């Protein structure tokens, strides 16, 4: 059959007229497949996709260098499920909303609290009333004023039992213990807590102020995709799973930002993000793998940035479990794990140093607490003294997301095995399952966790209590120091005297570290790849913020 000329076949097929036969059906089937390809290729089947492809901001994203509107494009691994800040509290939603919405106050780059919407902020004289005088002439994008009524509306929406029954999960008013919000005059508002609580203060840096008329007029379903803020960039368009586009807010109270278009792309694959950065399709990429740093540093157009976050990576030790009930067994883990080596070799030295205490805000850590040295002999001695059964199974639960989390877990288990725990193993859990176990305090063995808190000593000591974040160590109910810790913690919550606060926070750190309910490791770092034409740096607390208090906005300089 090799004598058959395929060109003849094509010519003769073309010359034939249409006939409705089985043969024609086969042909049409093939043609249909080809047509599907062409139709698909033209994008005709994709209404959402076409809008993403043709919108002006997106078109600019690929070629934002040069004259004309300036566009900054960032590629991240994920995206929020909603843009309603009172329905989701993930880090990723903060990334999006920090550009569009504002808080009454905000952490600056040095973790100090600065006024943003507030012109003046007054801590409570009576222990419960926080007073804010807002700046004048601030407006949401639709022209509605940013005033005391907006603050009151935001808090009441967040506290409403009806709303919470429908899935609203805003933690801020609950954590602050807000009782009610009082409008003193159009620009003065008082937030009143049910009982004295010094912890309320930094949480004002977390509650995005909403536009009352806009959010009252929308169902929760619509509010999830139609945000309204007062921030430097206005929401323009969101193609879920692909990109969210924002445009500069010309009426912004701090002035129009230099970047005209801000585009957030959702790109789950790390190597794809890196390729996009190298090619110039995006200006900033998040969640860079430490192994890719050499590629970024080797490219003259790029630079790497690291944000040492406020997340404390630690091994949670469930003190209620038989094998870890004895304090000596828990303390031994501090000596058994070579944290410095993990930082140096597994994490490439990026987290800089081992954590000494769970308190990290400058001025608050207890200077008397020193990190444990790596001393396997001491660890063995303590474990033997505690009657530790060396043949029992020891499991370290972990998730895989985060910087080299699984590698770190494996390095820890390797240290435990070297020590003599021959049945030590890593067990990987899905993120949702890990969180469920934390919430239910159900971990039956070691777990590799990280916890964050607003940067403020009295709040940071709340972490081990489970009041503020998820902890499964049972420190407060299964250790000797636990009850005393709780008592002092409640005192610090109600203490507004700074000297007394420092004294209590110091004592609390000592009590906690004595029990070794957490084996503190390091501060989680987030790595970014950045195009050098972009004048932007990540921050410790919010990580991604394009216009911090007392700074100028992020810029395109190339």
């Amino acid at each position, binding site marked *: 059959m090799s004598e058959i000329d395929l060109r003849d076949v094509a010519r003769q097929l073309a010359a034939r007229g249409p006939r409705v036969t089985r043969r024609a059906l086969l042909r049409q089937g093939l043609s249909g497949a080809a047509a599907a*390809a062409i139709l698909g290729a033209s994008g005709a089947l994709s209404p959402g996709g076409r809008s993403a492809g043709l919108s002006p901001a997106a078109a600019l994203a690929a070629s934002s260098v040069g004259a004309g509107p300036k566009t900054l494009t960032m590629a991240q691994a994920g995206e929020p499920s909603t843009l309603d800040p009172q329905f989701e509290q993930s880090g990723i939603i903060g990334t999006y909303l920090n550009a569009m919405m504002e808080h009454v106050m905000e952490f600056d780059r040095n973790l100090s609290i600065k006024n943003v919407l507030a012109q003046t902020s007054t801590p409570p004289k009576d222990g419960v009333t926080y007073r804010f005088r807002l700046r004048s002439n601030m407006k949401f994008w639709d022209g509605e004023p940013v005033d005391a009524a907006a603050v009151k509306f935001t808090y009441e929406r967040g506290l409403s039992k009806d709303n919470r029954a429908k899935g609203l999960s805003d933690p801020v008013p609950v954590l602050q213990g807000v009782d009610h919000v009082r409008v003193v005059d159009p620009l003065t508002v008082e937030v009143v807590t049910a009982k004295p609580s010094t912890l309320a203060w930094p949480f004002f840096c977390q509650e995005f102020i909403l536009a009352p008329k806009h959010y009252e007029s929308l169902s929760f379903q619509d509010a999830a995709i139609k945000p309204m803020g007062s921030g430097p960039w206005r929401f323009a368009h969101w193609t879920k799973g692909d990109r969210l586009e924002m445009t500069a807010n010309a009426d912004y109270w701090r002035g129009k930002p230099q970047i005209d278009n801000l585009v957030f792309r959702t790109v789950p694959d790390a*190597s794809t993000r890196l390729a996009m950065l190298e090619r110039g399709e995006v200006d900033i990429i998040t969640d860079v793998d430490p192994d890719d740093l050499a590629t970024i540093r080797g490219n003259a157009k790029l630079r790497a940035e690291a944000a040492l976050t406020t997340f404390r990576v630690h091994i949670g030790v469930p003190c209620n479990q038989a094998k870890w009930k004895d304090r000596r067994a828990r303390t031994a883990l501090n000596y058994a794990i070579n944290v410095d080596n993990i930082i140096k070799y597994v994490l490439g030295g990026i987290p800089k140093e081992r954590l000494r205490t769970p308190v990290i805000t400058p001025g608050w850590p207890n200077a008397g607490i020193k990190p444990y040295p790596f001393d396997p002999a001491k660890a063995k001695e303590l474990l033997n003294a505690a009657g530790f059964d060396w043949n029992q199974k020891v499991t370290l639960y972990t998730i895989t997301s985060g910087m080299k989390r699984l590698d770190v877990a494996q390095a820890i288990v390797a240290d435990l095995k070297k020590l003599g725990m021959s049945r030590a193993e890593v067990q990987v859990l899905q993120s949702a399952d890990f969180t469920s176990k934390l919430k239910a305090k159900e971990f039956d063995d070691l777990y590799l966790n990280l916890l964050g808190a607003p940067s403020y000593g009295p709040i940071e000591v709340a972490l081990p209590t489970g009041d503020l974040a998820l902890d499964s160590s049972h420190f407060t109910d299964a250790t000797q120091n636990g009850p005393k810790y709780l008592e002092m913690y409640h005192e610090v919550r109600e203490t507004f005297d700074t000297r007394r606060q420092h004294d209590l926070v110091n004592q609390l750190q000592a009590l906690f570290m004595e029990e070794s309910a957490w084996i503190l490791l390091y501060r989680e770092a987030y790595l970014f790849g950045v195009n050098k034409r972009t004048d932007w740096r990540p921050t410790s607390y919010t990580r991604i913020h394009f216009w911090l208090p007392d700074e100028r906005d992020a810029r395109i300089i190339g």
Partner: protein
Amino acid sequence: MLRYVVHRVLLAVLVVAGVSIVSFGLLFLSGDPAAALAGDNWTRTQIDEFRHQMGFDRPWYVQYGDFVSHAVRGDFGTSLREHRPVFELLMERMPATLELTGTAFGISAVLGIALGVVSATRRRSLYDRAVLVLTLAGQSMPVFWVGTMLILVFAVRLGWLPIAGMGGLSHLVLPATALGFFPVARNARVVRSSMLEVLGADYVRTARAKGLPGPRVLLGHALRNALLPVVTLLALDIGYLLSGAVITESIFAWPGVGRLTVAAVLGKDLPLVEAAVVVLAAGFVMINLTVDLCYGVIDPRVRFE
């Protein structure tokens, strides 16, 4: 014929129901959705209240029955994470997945058959050997590796095409090629071997002996008969393409149903997972049913009993 069709349709319904029960059961067994969905600072009491409110404390068969009774009326419920109707969410993403899988299917069908025919008609030639190498490679390389290589070569090095995202023909080329690579290779191999078998058959020799033109012998007598096994494969390709789309969508940041479903599974968004599974399974079953029914049209020897 009618009896056969009714029988197959009933079987299809059973398959979809079975798939949905299994997926529901697996999600149910994988942990407490209330704890996964609750806010980080919720107390145990709040989580218990939420569990009750959402009906997660009911037996699994009651929850499943509730889902089915609503689903048959077209109401798949509201996403627990996005707070929007799940059917709306699926339909928002479906065009992107159809665009990608449709194009990949077109590539795999047209290119696979063409390469197979060329290879068979030029047996042991350079073309044939090249196609054999290509098909061997195509079947050995996983889609994530093909995707990454395509990005490195055609987007990063040569700069001909965009790396990721949606936005017209140029954005579609790389993901569709990556996704269609494996089925192209498989279809080419099957078409080649099927063609070789048919080309040696008596009726083809007879057709040539009658003096029929080469193209008519090739396409009218040989290819038509050789295509029967390929039609089955093409139907199965749909299943492969839909599952492969999950990985391809992640690599190329393609906003399709695959990524939405994976996120829903990880986030224990039960209504969304169930709806996605039912819709995709129903689509796959329907395509297979249609193909089975087409056999009688394609090959008159096939009788439905």
